[in-house]
């Protein structure tokens, strides 16, 4: 592991990292993640500045980004503050908000639109076939990826400071996001295939019903009706149909 240059030791960065794991604990509408952000800064405020209370007071403003991307911003702010906050508080605040907005979008696509659906789809496929090793592997790999991204994000932000902005404006980020989305789509297709092949094994009636319900679900979701509401609605309906047919 490459050494982190600066006033903060690996142990102090690990403390910041641990606080960042719970950045969502204090999310609220008015300041969003600002309390979590302050809690993370607080873990390293004393070693980087002579006025930790002043540093915290400067960063008490509204803050919101993808929780997995927040460590990059915190790392960047720690470096900038360590260097004396070049450009003044207004510039640091603009840096924070600019990074938060850009990383929120990228983080949502990468995690909510890519890694999480990918992991959950593979977990569902593993569970359908009672493949417990697959379930454990999905859980371990997903968490390893998320924790590694968060820790690396923190050290990366702390190494680069202002340079964080340049690092995330390149085409490499878009390529990574594209790969994550494509992988999730591939896993989604796999799950659809599993659903269809299992229906085929149980006869043509179930195949026809599966295709019909899928089409209905697709139409309903397009119109803003969540799949869970359709499932709830269909349960009593299935009783009635069963009782009538009996």
């Amino acid at each position, binding site marked *: 592991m490459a050494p982190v240059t600066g006033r903060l030791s690996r142990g102090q960065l690990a403390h910041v990292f641990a606080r960042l794991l719970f950045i969502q604990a204090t999310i*609220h*509408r008015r300041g969003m993640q600002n309390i979590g952000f302050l809690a993370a800064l607080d873990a390293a405020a004393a070693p980087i500045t002579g006025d930790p209370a002043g540093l915290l007071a400067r960063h008490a403003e509204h803050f919101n980004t993808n929780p997995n991307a927040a460590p990059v911003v915190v790392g960047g702010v720690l470096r900038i503050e360590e260097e004396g906050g070049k450009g003044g508080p207004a510039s640091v605040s603009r840096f924070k908000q600019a990074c938060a907005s850009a990383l929120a979008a990228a983080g949502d696509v990468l995690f909510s639109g890519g890694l999480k659906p990918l992991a959950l789809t593979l977990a569902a496929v593993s569970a359908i076939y009672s493949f417990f090793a697959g379930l454990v592997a999905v859980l371990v790999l997903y968490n390893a990826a998320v924790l590694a991204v968060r820790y690396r994000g923190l050290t990366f932000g702390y190494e680069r400071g202002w340079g964080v902005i340049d690092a995330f404006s390149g085409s490499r980020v878009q390529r990574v996001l594209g790969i994550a989305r494509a992988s999730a789509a591939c896993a989604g297709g796999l799950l659809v295939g599993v659903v269809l092949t299992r229906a085929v094994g149980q006869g043509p009636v179930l195949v026809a019903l*599966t295709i019909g319900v899928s089409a209905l679900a697709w139409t309903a979701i397009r119109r803003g009706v969540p799949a869970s509401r359709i499932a709830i609605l269909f349960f009593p309906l299935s009783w009635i149909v069963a009782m009538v047919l009996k």
Partner: protein
Amino acid sequence: MSETVFIAVIAGLLALDDRAGWQSLLGEPVFAALLVGLAAGPVGPALRCGVALQLVWLSIGAARGSRRPNVVVGGLVAAGAACGVLERTGDPRELFVVATAVFCGLLAGEAGAVVARVAGGGRERWLGRFQLPAEAGAASRRLVLTTTASALYVALVDGIFVLLALPAAVFLTETVTGRLGAAAAGATWWLALLPALAAGTIVHAFATRTLARFAALGLLIAGVASWLL
């Protein structure tokens, strides 16, 4: 009773992970139900509940403006109800029990989201009034205490909700499976068709020119694998 308390404690811990921590996925129905199965009853039916709910609540392509149900509560209530009823009654119609428990889990997930939203109002107001003390030591203590208290509040709300919802779900599952035997076939078909909802969700989420190609590749892999195996 002790199993209900135990599952409520699991609910609190998983809520902590899902809404206060880094979302390790343990709170997702497929994993939460597996935990209940390992801790409180037969693993098979619990996992069946988890898979069914996971397929309905597949976290992609959420409908516009829709709120996410409380998946932690739903998964635990469904798996807990299925395990509890199967253990108590020894009902041989496992699929019927699982289907009814899944239905209870879906209702609990929707109700849990409403409860969390209402109960979260007080927490919102409290966090909205947060003031940072001027002294560094006091500020540090306040931040740690606020974070801990807020996380515990989230855990407590879900834990208490599961403590109340689980016995209700067990009662409902037992009543339905005991008195509406004629509906067993319908409920079993309903359970068999839940994966179709996931298929609809996936088609909706990935129906773009770029992503559809990759989804088709996955479909092809599943087809070839099923043909070969």
